[in-house]
């Protein structure tokens, strides 16, 4: 229960007649409350809880579930996983301290090194492709198109379902030996093969799937483009800038905050892709480990082979790599990210 004084302070001490009714009503209610009688009303007397104290307690109260999750499901497990990464642990016998053995083993593990290569290739091709496609479509949509809500929604739809098993199942068929993609190639007279079954092309089918979900990045770009002041383009036109220069000197700099945001999120997400690779390759990462994403290999080591120590070490390598990438992005952002209000 809040004390009378607290409330009077917040309300601005003396009240006018218009509020008299509320005041009596409140006073009546408070008088019947036992705590109200205990409230030390003497001026200068110490109160058990100051208003800010009370607010702090309320704040921690509201955060209680989050604290619980943070400690029990995030920070605690992170520390435990760091410990496990220096051990050998199969869930059945207690963890056995092995020092740096797991980390050293990675350097000699050809499947680990391969999974790093596969993941990097995936990220390095998929992320720029997504950015270019999403920005291009967003710019077309920003040219005062009619039916904008329809287009926006339709382009966005794949983002919602791209990580589902259903779409991965569909992708298997589309890029399989007798799939739709080959049927389309057949129309133009090219004889296809199984793109999923060929180690040279399997990863590209997954990259295609990832680019297919460009809609979420597009919506973020579109929101940014709509805020670019029209006068800037007009001013640039008057100064003789063509479409290319207007894009390079007006659009791009103003979009850098959103480019920053999209690069960061798309990259972090791409590193964590799992379901498509798992379903398309039946959980093997095949053919010939060509779709063995880092996350898939981690899953295999941890949950198929029960090498919890090695899997934890792999997880921590990923955390460090993504942490370094994020730090790099933030550190370089002041050289290339322009915020409008700076100038």
């Amino acid at each position, binding site marked *: 229960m809040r004390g009378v004084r607290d*409330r009077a302070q917040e309300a601005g001490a003396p009240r006018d007649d218009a509020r008299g009714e509320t005041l009596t009503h409140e006073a009546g*209610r408070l008088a019947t409350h036992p705590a109200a009688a205990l409230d030390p009303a003497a001026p200068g007397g110490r109160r058990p809880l100051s208003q800010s104290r009370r*607010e*702090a*307690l*309320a*704040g921690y109260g*509201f*955060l*209680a*579930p*989050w604290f619980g*999750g943070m400690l029990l*499901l995030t920070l605690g*497990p992170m520390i*435990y*996983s760091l410990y*496990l990464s220096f051990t050998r642990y199969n869930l059945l016998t207690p963890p056995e301290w092995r020092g740096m053995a797991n980390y050293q083993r990675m350097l000699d593990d050809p499947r680990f090194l391969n999974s790093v290569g596969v993941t990097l290739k995936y990220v390095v091709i998929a992320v720029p492709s997504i950015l270019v496609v999403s920005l291009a479509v967003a710019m*077309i949509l920003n040219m005062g*198109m009619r039916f904008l809500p329809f*287009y926006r*929604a339709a*382009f*966005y*739809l794949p983002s919602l*379902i791209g*990580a*589902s098993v*259903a779409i991965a*199942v569909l*992708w*298997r*068929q*589309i890029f399989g030996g*007798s*799939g*739709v993609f080959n049927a389309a190639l057949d129309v133009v007279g090219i004889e296809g093969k199984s793109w999923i079954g060929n180690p040279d092309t399997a990863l590209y089918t997954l990259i295609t799937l990832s680019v297919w979900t460009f809609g*979420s990045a597009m919506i*973020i770009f*579109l929101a940014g483009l709509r805020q670019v002041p029209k006068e800037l383009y007009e001013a640039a*036109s*008057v*100064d*003789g800038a063509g479409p290319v220069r207007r894009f390079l000197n007006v659009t791009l700099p103003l979009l850098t905050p959103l480019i920053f*945001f*999209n690069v960061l999120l798309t990259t*972090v997400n791409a*590193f964590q892709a*799992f*379901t498509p690779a*798992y379903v398309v390759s*039946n959980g093997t990462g095949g053919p010939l480990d060509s779709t063995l994403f880092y996350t898939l290999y*981690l899953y295999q080591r*941890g*949950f198929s082979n029960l090498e*919890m120590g090695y*899997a*934890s070490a792999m*997880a921590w390598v990923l*955390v460090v790599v993504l942490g370094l990438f994020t730090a790099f992005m933030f550190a370089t952002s002041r050289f290339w990210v322009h915020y409008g209000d700076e100038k």
Partner: protein
Amino acid sequence: MSAQAPAAPSVLQRPVFGRRQSKNRAVVSIARHAVLLLILFVILYPLLWMLGASVRPSNEAFGTIGLWSGNLTLDNYREGWTFGSLNFSRYFMNSLVITVLCIIGNIFSCSLAAYAFARLEFPFKRVLFALMLGTMLLPYHVTLVPQYILFNELAWINTILPLVVPKFLATDAFFIFLMVQFIRTLPRELDAAARLDGCGHVGIFRRIILPLSIPAIGTTALFTFIHTWNDFLGPLLYLNQPDKWTVAQGLNGFLDATGESAFGPLFAMATLSLAPIIGFFLVAQKLLIEGIATSGLK
């Protein structure tokens, strides 16, 4: 204006005949729509094709590019629903229960945390907020193994608890962020007025903030629904008994059991598994798109 700017030849050279310009504009506009529709067609073609394949008689070939063969049948749906030892009524029920509980959990825990971050002052608030933001970028793999060990110790394997309980502990920081951003836009005068009327923080939260945050809560519910419904890794780790499977696992099990031999029923079930998402999307796409534009959710 432009006449006084001799340094701008491109502006001066532009044709000034209004009629020709508007005609050009119409052509350009049609061309743009054509380009967009073409891209859209390519993007959405796989989905249309899958829908077509799901109602195609099973004796017709599936490696064709056409959408409709003229013969419609619902046999694939009938066959797929209880294919072999699969039981999609059960998978849909399991997915539904998990999804509803996750939505309740996220709304409950994330709105509480968001109110604290958006409205209350307390020591270490900035540090905690930064910590919360930091977890948004944290790869979930780092907690995958230890969480599995924890839930294994608690004997929660083959129950839905490992999938649901974390949502009640606000582990999806994205939604906290989304709601913080939203609550910050609500006028503080409302809080003050409620306080005058005798509301404490719980009262303000329940009577003022929650009702006004319906749009943000709706976005949270929708994204939680989509994430949970699509989730595959979580159920794959924690639900090993086929009668506990979710729809996503059922589909994967279908593929494992039949390989490439029963495309029709497989695509019928795949289509059904996407139907709730696409349905909700059509109903609430405005909410989703506003949500993503303000917070960058995927």
